Each structure stands twice: as structure tokens, then as C-alpha cells.
């Protein structure tokens, strides 16, 4: 068995489950018509419902229901035609209602699964459920020594909580799961998957056991907000638990917080202090009954999902599996690719997209969408390579300047005097003058000194200041030397 962690006396298996909160990309909130826009003035997007004013009644956003269902379909999950909203009761300053409207016993989406890639091949990760709930407001603790500041703009935004089965066995698998989930959310369009903005947040349940034994006591690690942090948090937490167990101690079930600066987890609250939420059906909201027609409609219009798209790319464009995987893992990129590849050589397109363009985006630390690079911009450059105007090497040289500037590819290369000479007549003239100047060498070549061919090519390149199209020089040179 792989992925086992070596302790002092035993090999341990780490068992992981994820609870992911994904904010639905809706314009208005789950139960109120306040805007969900990010980064607005504090408390400027708060209706009476979001502020928990007595008597203000929640009315559900139909779009959010559709997004939950479509996400469920994307996760191969059972859609529950009847679901119920409950109140989850606790007191916290950023929760003005004194309860969160959530779904407890009857979630809108039941069991499903997704598949991830592991070293041993594909692996199915079970989804336990997906339910709809309200987000809380934002507490800001670091603005003031004595006070906490509260902004309720996020209060009431629609979240999907997606709970996985404890099916993952390594930090890497957990990372793959989260990446795949994020990709699926982006494909169905229910959540943008932006972890920096907090639109996708993950809590990780970690426990360890000796393989084959029953599940160990788990700890929940809260709000680990990047894929890298998730792996680090899991590594630390698994080792902490193993150390405790091997020294004869027990694991206490508790909620822990990951500190990315110290690379450790620490107690946030333990089970005894943990809340007793006293869930009960929200008397303001009748059960949600989904019509068959709605589910059928969404099923019919379900966008192509990443696995399907990958398969299609491999078959249609003859891509390598790895390249196809890279292209489909971001929806934007896959759409960009399909636009770009129209009428162009897939191999060339893939290499420019996943090579040069990705390197550029990484260097600038922006996403494809943020970079504002257009399909046309890349297409123009690739076309100049395809028709021989520009060599690959030349294109790479100007790539960054080209992407950042407003000049067209043609303008830029003529300005830089870069255009490759591919005109047969012009090349012929260059070659003839090189041969004329080196009559002796030509004689030697014709009498069998084949190695001199490279010398002629070199001279032609020198004369053209590197602009001659090498393939064509070769071709013409062979002809000329035959005579």
C-alpha cells in the first residue's frame, strides 16, 4: 500500500475528508436581494434580512437553487426533489440573525462522486452531500486593539457546502480532489473557485490509523485557504497525531486552526466547548420541492464537463493525455485553446499555449482572464510562424514585448527588422553570392567534402544577419550545389 507514513513503531495511514464551502456566483444573496459584489463599502450591501431585523422574511433566490442542482449533476449526485431549510443556532457578532439558515437532515443534493488522478490511476472520491446555506458576515480583528469590526456585506451570500467521504489517503489526493472540484464548479458555472477572495474555502478532517483498523478520532482543520496550505496542514497534522498515538496518548476530537507562517495547527475549540447547534426546520421557509421539469431541463443543458472535454481533445486534436489534462483543468484555458486551434496545427498551438503563454502568465502572476491576452493576439503570432515569416526562436524573443504592447505582430517584427527571409528569389540571390565568393570550397564540396554544406549554410545566415529561413536555405542550397 502506498502513501503510508512511517512513525517510530508503525506504518500509519492518513484518512482525509473535505468540507468545501463554495460561494455561488449569483448577483444577489440567497434569501435577500442585496448585491453580492466583492470589495464594496462596508455594510453597504445589507438588507433588513441580512441584518437580522425582526420580522424581515427570507425569500429564496431561484438562481441559487438551479446552481446547486447543476453542481449536483456535475458531481454525478442524487438530486433530492424535496429538501428542507433548518436553523443552525449559535451566537457570534458576524451572525446577526443568531442562526444560520442551512440544510441539515434533508439537503438539496445527496450522494455523488468525482474522479481524481493518482499515481495508481483513477480514483473515485465519494461526495456525501451538497447543501445550501447562508454565509456569515466578516469579522476584522486586526484593525484595533480592543475591538472587532463587523462588515455584513457577505452576510446572507449563498454558499454550497460540499462534503466528501473520508476517501482520501494523502495530502496530494486531497489537493487533487479540491482542484477537480474547483474545475467542475467552474465548468458548470456555479462558483468561480477563487480561493484568494474566499469564494472557495476548505475545512479538512484528518485522522490516522494503522491500515485495516477502524477509523481514528479526527480533527477538523478550519479554513485552509490555498491548495498548498492544505497539503502543508495535512502533513503537520498527521505527524502530530502519529506522535501522540505512538507515545500512548489519545487524540482529542477538536477543531484546529492552521497557521501558515509557523506551519502548524493549533487548538481552536475542542468538542466539549463546541457548539450545540439545536437545528430545527426554519418556520419561515416551507420545504423546497423541485419540479421534474427543472431537473430535466438542467440535465439537458449541462455543460460539457472536464473529463468529457479531455477525452474529446485527445480524440479530436490527437493531444497527449498530459497536455489535454492541463488544457481542461481551467475552463477559460480550454475555451481559449479551442478558439485558437481552429484552422491551426494543434501541436504548435499546445506548445505555445502551455509553454510560452503559461510561462508569461506565471511570471506576471496573473490568470489568463486577468491578463487580457486575446485569442487573436496569439493566433497572429502563430500564423507568422506557420507561414515561415518568423522562426520559433524569433517569436520567443519578442513574445513578452508583443503581449504587453499594443503593436500587431507584423508591425513589431518589421520594426525590429526581424522578419524571416522566406522569399525564394531573395534567398537564391544570397546563396549565389555566397557560392560565388567561395569557388574553391564549392569545388571541394563537389569532390566529396560533404561537411562543407554546413559552412555554406552558416555563410548564408551570416550574410542575411540571421534572417534567412533555415529550412528553405537548406533546400535551395542542395539544388544549387547539385548543378
Amino acid at each position, binding site marked *: 500500500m502506498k502513501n503510508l507514513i512511517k512513525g517510530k513503531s508503525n506504518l500509519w495511514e492518513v484518512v482525509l475528508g473535505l468540507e468545501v464551502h463554495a460561494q455561488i456566483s449569483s448577483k444577489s444573496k440567497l434569501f435577500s436581494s442585496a448585491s453580492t459584489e466583492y470589495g464594496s463599502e462596508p*455594510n453597504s450591501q445589507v438588507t433588513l434580512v441580512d441584518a437580522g431585523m425582526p420580522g424581515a422574511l427570507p425569500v429564496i433566490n431561484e438562481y441559487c437553487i438551479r446552481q446547486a442542482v447543476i453542481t449536483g449533476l456535475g458531481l454525478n449526485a442524487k438530486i433530492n426533489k424535496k429538501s428542507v431549510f433548518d436553523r443552525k443556532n449559535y451566537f457570534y457578532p458576524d451572525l446577526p440573525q443568531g442562526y444560520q439558515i442551512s440544510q441539515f437532515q434533508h439537503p438539496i443534493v445527496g450522494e455523488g462522486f468525482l474522479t481524481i488522478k493518482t499515481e495508481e490511476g483513477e480514483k473515485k472520491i465519494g461526495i456525501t452531500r451538497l447543501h445550501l446555506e447562508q454565509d456569515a458576515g466578516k469579522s476584522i480583528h486586526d484593525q484595533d486593539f480592543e475591538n472587532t469590526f463587523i462588515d455584513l456585506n457577505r452576510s446572507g451570500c449563498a454558499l454550497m457546502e460540499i462534503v466528501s467521504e473520508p476517501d482520501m489517503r494523502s495530502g496530494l489526493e486531497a489537493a487533487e480532489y479540491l482542484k477537480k472540484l474547483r474545475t467542475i464548479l467552474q465548468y458548470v458555472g456555479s462558483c468561480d473557485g477563487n480561493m484568494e477572495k474566499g469564494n472557495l474555502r476548505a475545512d479538512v478532517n484528518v485522522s490516522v490509523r494503522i491500515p485495516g483498523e477502524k477509523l481514528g478520532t479526527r480533527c477538523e482543520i478550519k479554513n485552509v485557504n490555498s491548495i498548498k496550505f492544505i497539503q502543508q496542514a495535512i502533513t503537520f497534522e498527521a505527524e502530530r497525531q502519529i506522535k501522540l498515538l505512538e507515545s500512548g496518548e489519545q487524540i482529542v476530537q477538536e477543531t484546529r486552526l492552521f497557521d501558515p507562517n509557523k506551519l502548524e495547527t493549533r487548538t481552536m475549540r475542542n468538542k466539549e466547548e463546541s457548539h450545540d447547534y439545536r437545528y430545527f426546520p426554519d418556520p419561515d421557509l416551507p420545504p423546497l420541492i423541485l419540479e421534474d421539469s427543472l431537473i430535466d431541463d438542467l440535465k439537458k443543458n449541462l455543460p460539457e464537463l472536464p473529463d468529457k472535454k479531455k477525452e474529446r481533445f485527445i480524440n479530436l486534436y490527437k493531444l497527449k493525455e498530459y497536455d489535454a489534462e492541463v488544457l481542461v483543468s481551467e475552463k477559460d484555458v480550454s475555451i481559449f485553446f479551442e478558439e485558437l486551434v481552429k484552422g491551426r496545427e494543434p501541436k504548435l498551438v499546445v506548445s505555445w499555449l502551455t509553454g510560452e503563454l503559461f510561462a508569461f502568465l506565471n511570471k506576471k502572476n496573473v490568470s489568463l482572464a486577468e491578463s487580457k491576452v486575446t485569442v487573436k493576439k496569439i493566433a497572429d503570432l502563430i500564423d507568422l510562424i506557420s507561414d515561415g515569416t518568423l522562426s520559433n526562436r524569433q517569436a520567443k524573443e519578442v513574445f513578452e514585448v508583443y503581449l504587453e504592447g499594443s503593436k500587431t505582430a507584423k508591425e513589431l517584427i518589421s520594426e525590429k527588422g526581424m522578419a524571416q527571409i522566406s522569399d525564394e528569389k531573395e534567398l537564391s540571390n544570397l546563396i549565389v553570392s555566397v557560392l560565388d565568393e567561395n569557388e574553391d570550397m564549392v569545388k571541394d564540396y563537389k569532390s566529396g567534402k560533404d561537411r562543407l554544406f554546413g559552412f555554406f549554410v552558416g555563410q548564408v545566415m551570416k550574410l542575411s544577419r540571421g534572417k534567412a529561413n533555415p529550412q528553405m536555405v537548406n533546400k535551395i542550397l542542395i539544388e544549387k550545389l547539385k548543378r
Partner: protein
Amino acid sequence: MSIDNSIVKKISKLSKLKIKSDSEDKMAEELNNILNWVESLQEVNTEKVEPLLSVLNEKMPLRDDKVVMDDNQVDILNNAPEKKSGFFVVPKVVE
């Protein structure tokens, strides 16, 4: 089910309501009376009855995903005992 003083304490803690310790007995007695009264419902045979999810016999009303609101930051903050730069201000809460 029977409620003793420790449950009364727990409930008061959860609901953030202060109950004087000399009224715990009385509170426990009142709560037990309510529970005993409701308990008679247990006698009804519900074996073949589907659980009732809500007593509201109506469909969930739906809303379009439209932003309908004015900026009411001033109104929202109007009841706040303390506010600063558009935020509610509360005593420090640290997890």
C-alpha cells in the same frame, strides 16, 4: 425526558440568557411540565405516516436573481451602539 438543573444551565448558556441560580429549580419544573404535556403525543401511532417536514402547506416562493436595494449603510448602522468608518464595532472576539 427529564430536565435537571445542569440542563437548565446548559440551555441558559447556549441561549445567552442569565438565570439566577435560585430560580433554576423553578425553571426545570416549568420546562418538565411542557415536555410532559407534549409527551402525550408520543402515544399516537405514526408507523405508516410520512414525517411532516413543515406545517406550512404551501410552495416555497421563489425570487429572481436581481439586486433590488438602495445603499442603506446609514440606516443599517443606525441602531449600532458603536460604529466606525462604516463598520459595526464590538468588543474584541478572538477564537
